[in-house]
């Protein structure tokens, strides 16, 4: 029987037990590669497989767990050779009495952002195994013992894109209910079912007694069959043994039938005896068939957001009407977007909309960069805001979790381009109630489009719960009758179709005075009509207040806990002021203040002081005669040991706040930029210690240099390319490990060989001036302050 038929048949499915521990028992020595057993100890391996089949295993795992190119690197064997031999041997041992699974375990290198392995490289590594395993006749693929959901995604894509094998994915959790890397069963289940896994579950981790809470959580978030393959209890500290006997194991496992577990096996420390006893215990037990209903929800790799109440989508990562963000996009300054993200989640956003569309940049490339960077700093799920299928697919591929695709509209062309991507990557999708003919005026016409989008999505196999409808906000100053139509459409989509709804709220008030007032009221009205996902600026207190009040009044915020937490000790002003929160026109101005504030490292105060000063003085005057002298005084104090690194950075941070105010004033005035020259910074290939480089960056920027920050683990060729592209006169390289100094040397050598007309400055804890000279660097900077001195020498200002 094939795997998918087995899943449908009644009764439990038995998997096999431990492999590593069995090989050790046969005599595998410490330091030997267990991955090579099929080639070096085929008799042992065959005996182990046979013993499991005899014990009752209906599926055995071929010994390919670690047979990836990274782990085999030092064995002199190829992946194809090891995987083929291992699968063939398992098939021989199974003699048709059990199915053989291609086993895909962790690569052994952590993926970005915790590690440095790139997602596409991980997909490639698994692809090699899948191709060989499918060719050798594996019946299914299992992805197991994973702690990073992103790595599971890579393996799952590799299976789906390179074979027709069914696939099961199990992760390894700790007692706190998360994996080492923070993934929880809810995020895993939502993401993997969305991407087309056939079964999900838990393996390794803990013993069978610790399984029930993990299984219960899985049942809430997936309709797929659930697999459980735990260790023989908890490990003895420092030893190799486990604390549960075969009898205890079997008894605990059999109880999981009441939770509806379909596939049963064992991991580390379990033997054929454990499987045989488990088989006996399970005999005669019925697997409880509990109908499961998974609610609408989105997630990142570590955080699930069910759409079971109003969830706020932050709208600020969007260049429309934002000079500073456009500038950041042109410069490739991803930090700007990260700041926007953290400010919004801090203010209460549950989900972040990401729109990086700007005519003059490569949207697809930028979307991927921003999404990667965002998932390094925030747990909040994202909404990918683009109509470019290329940008969407790039971002869908690298995003770890279940995102919202914003958007598709009622046109066939739009649906056919976008919906297959939504299905493949398991996303949710926003359907706009418009089509080629534009936005319909009437509610009924919008309902027609909403139904059309829903039907099409269902026909692609997208869940009903994953289709959200945007009934579209029309500007009330242009079409006053529009707001009521939008609200009515919301009510009907919510009531008649039972779908979740999305709405961009802020446009309603365009062209009107007292916009926040209109926005806040429209938001409240929309929520009353069934709006689930308002797209708003969460930094505006009046908008978040409307959401909190709604939850309070609708009895969603039980016992008013959240409301009191937010407002319990605050005096909320009910006056709505138009415009953004600008600095209060406080008394006391003057340059001494700004200089002092920079020296004291007071960020927000420095920004406000700069704003006041700009009312009476020229921007460049403020930079040259106040900011830079203040930074110089701090720098001099740093050199003489009167102030220390933390204060130096804080002063730089305060100066940065002042600079941002000045840049706002200057941008758009040609020839009046603060720019003193361009510097490329990078932490070299192989090295990921970038805190020192980032400190240098802050300082250089505050002296008016434009810094192109290439990040960490940067290839020498990328440094050359960036230095050329931006015409950088100075390249700064950082390395913190003796083992990565070599990359620094290579980068400098390549810059020389390619005759890039730039100077180089190097720094990092293990560097010395002598070594810097030896590898051909033009300058050595012992700290961030010295890097500024170097820049001044190079640029002459």
């Amino acid at each position, binding site marked *: 029987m094939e795997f998918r038929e087995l899943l449908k048949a009644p009764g439990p499915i038995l998997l096999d037990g431990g492999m590593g521990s069995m090989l050790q028992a046969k005599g595998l*020595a*410490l*330091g030997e590669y267990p991955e090579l057993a099929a080639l070096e100890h085929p008799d042992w391996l065959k005996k182990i497989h046979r013993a499991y089949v005899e014990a009752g295993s209906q599926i055995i795992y071929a010994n390919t767990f670690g047979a990836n190119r990274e782990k085999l690197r030092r064995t002199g064997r190829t992946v194809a050779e090891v995987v083929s031999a291992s699968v063939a041997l398992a098939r021989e041992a199974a003699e048709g009495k059990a199915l053989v699974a291609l086993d895909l375990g*962790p690569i*052994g*290198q*952590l993926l970005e*952002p*915790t*590690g*440095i392995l790139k997602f596409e490289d991980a997909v490639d590594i698994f692809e090699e195994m899948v191709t060989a395993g499918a060719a050798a006749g594996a019946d299914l693929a299992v992805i197991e*013992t994973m*702690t990073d959901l992103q790595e599971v995604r890579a393996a799952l894509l590799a299976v789906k894109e390179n074979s027709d094998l069914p696939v099961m994915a199990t992760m*390894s959790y700790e007692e*706190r209910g998360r994996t*080492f*890397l*923070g993934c929880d069963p809810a995020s895993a289940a939502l993401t993997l079912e969305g991407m087309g896994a056939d079964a999900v579950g838990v393996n*390794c981790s803990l013993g069978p007694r610790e399984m029930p809470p993990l299984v219960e959580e899985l049942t809430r978030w997936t309709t797929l069959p659930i697999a459980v393959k735990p260790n023989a209890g908890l*490990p003895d*500290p*420092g030893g190799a043994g486990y604390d549960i006997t075969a009898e205890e194991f079997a008894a605990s496992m059999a109880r999981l039938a009441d939770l509806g577990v379909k596939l049963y096996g064992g991991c*580390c420390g379990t033997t054929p005896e454990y499987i045989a006893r488990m088989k006996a215990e399970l005999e005669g037990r019925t697997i409880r068939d509990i109908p499961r209903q998974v609610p609408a929800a989105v997630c990142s790799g570590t955080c699930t957001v069910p759409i079971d109440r109003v969830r706020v989508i932050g709208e600020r990562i969007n260049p429309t009407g934002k000079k500073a963000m456009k500038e950041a996009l042109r410069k490739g300054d991803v*930090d700007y977007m*990260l*700041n926007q993200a*953290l400010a919004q989640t801090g203010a209460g956003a549950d989900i972040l909309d990401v729109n990086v569309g700007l005519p003059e940049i490569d949207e697809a490339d930028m979307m991927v960069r921003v999404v990667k960077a965002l998932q*390094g*700093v*925030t747990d909040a799920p994202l909404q990918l805001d683009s109509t470019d299928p290329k940008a969407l697919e790039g971002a869908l591929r690298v995003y770890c979790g279940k995102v919202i695709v914003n958007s598709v509209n009622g046109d066939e062309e739009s649906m056919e381009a976008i919906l297959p991507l939504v299905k493949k990557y398991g996303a949710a999708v926003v359907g706009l109630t418009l089509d080629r003919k534009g936005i319909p005026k009437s509610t009924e016409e919008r309902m027609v489009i909403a139904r059309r989008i829903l039907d099409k999505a269902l026909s692609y196999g997208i869940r009903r719960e994953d289709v959200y409808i945007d009934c579209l906000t029309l500007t009330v100053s242009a079409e006053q009758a529009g707001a009521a139509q939008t609200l009515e459409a919301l009510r009907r989509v919510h009531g008649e179709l039972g779908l979740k709804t999305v709405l961009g709220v802020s446009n309603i008030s365009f062209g009107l005075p007292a916009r926040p007032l209109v926005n806040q009221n429209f938001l409240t009205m929309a929520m009353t009509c069934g709006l689930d996902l308002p797209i708003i600026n969460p930094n505006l207190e009046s908008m978040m207040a409307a959401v909190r009040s709604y939850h309070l009044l609708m009895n969603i915020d039980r016992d008013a806990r959240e409301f009191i937490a937010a407002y319990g000790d605050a005096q909320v002003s009910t006056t709505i002021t138009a415009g953004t929160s600008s600095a209060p026109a406080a008394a006391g101005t003057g340059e001494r203040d700004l200089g002092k504030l920079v020296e004291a*490292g007071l960020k927000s105060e420095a920004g406000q002081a700069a704003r006041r000063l700009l009312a009476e003085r020229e921007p460049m005057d403020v930079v040259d005669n106040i900011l830079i002298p203040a930074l110089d005084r701090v720098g001099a104090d740093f050199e003489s040991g009167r102030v*220390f*690194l*933390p*204060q130096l*950075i*804080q002063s730089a*941070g305060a100066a940065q706040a002042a600079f941002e105010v000045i840049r706002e004033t200057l941008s758009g005035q040609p020839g009046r930029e603060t720019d003193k020259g361009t510097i490329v910074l990078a932490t070299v*290939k*192989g*090295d*990921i*210690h*970038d*805190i020192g480089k*980032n*400190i240098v960056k*802050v300082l250089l920027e505050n002296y008016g240099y434009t810094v192109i920050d290439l990040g960490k683990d940067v290839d020498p060729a990328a440094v050359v390319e960036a230095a050329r592209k931006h015409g950088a006169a100075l390249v700064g390289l950082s390395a913190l*490990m*003796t*083992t990565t100094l070599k*990359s620094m040397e290579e980068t400098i050598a390549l810059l020389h060989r390619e005759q890039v007309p730039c100077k180089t400055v190097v720094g*990092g*804890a*293990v*560097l*010395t001036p002598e*070594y810097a000279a030896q590898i051909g660097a033009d300058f050595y900077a*012992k*700290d961030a302050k010295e890097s500024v001195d170097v820049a001044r020498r190079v640029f002459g200002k």
Partner: protein
Amino acid sequence: MPITITQLNIDEVLRYMGCPPDKADAATRALAEESAGQMLRAVTPRWTWRVFDLAFEPEGVRMGGLLLPGQDLKDHLRGCERAALFCATLGSGADALIRRAESVDMARALALDCAAAAAVEAVCDQIEGELQAMFPGCSFPFRFSPGYGDLPLTLQGDLLAALDAPRRVGLTASASNILLPRKSVTAILGISRNQIEKHIRSCLGCPAHDGCQYRKSGGHCGIS
């Protein structure tokens, strides 16, 4: 034996931040304290260990089939019959917290980074205490890690493999031998049945020896 760290030595955090504790202003000290608190809430310390017999060979020390090359560790372990190999990690939560701060506030990022460094040291001190208690009557030289003296960093992967560390505690080494999650340590603690001469951890054993700013200015970082 779960390890829990409930507080950090703020003076040590300040020293790592490049600020002599007696000269720290109130704001800097407050930043260090706050960051230490935040870091302690973000960490999930995990560790694992194994004891091996040692054999002294011309090229280095052999520990359970694995040759640890070089003279420095060999000298350091002289007199020890066994050694406990251990690794410890603060988990990926520490890295995520620092990463988040880096895009918003570098001073805080620095403080968090240094708090994590102090936390790793504190975790290792606790582990050393636990291990020593398991071998009553024995004596122990200070713990020694790849990168000290001439013990190469390229051993990291082998040491982790010997401990089954990726599976047991989620600790890995990159191709360039950086431990990931970042705030992690591998170390070898010699065990001797007899009294051995006590060494203290000194600048000579420190991987930052050549470039160290404290040493250049005649000072000391304050780590044991």
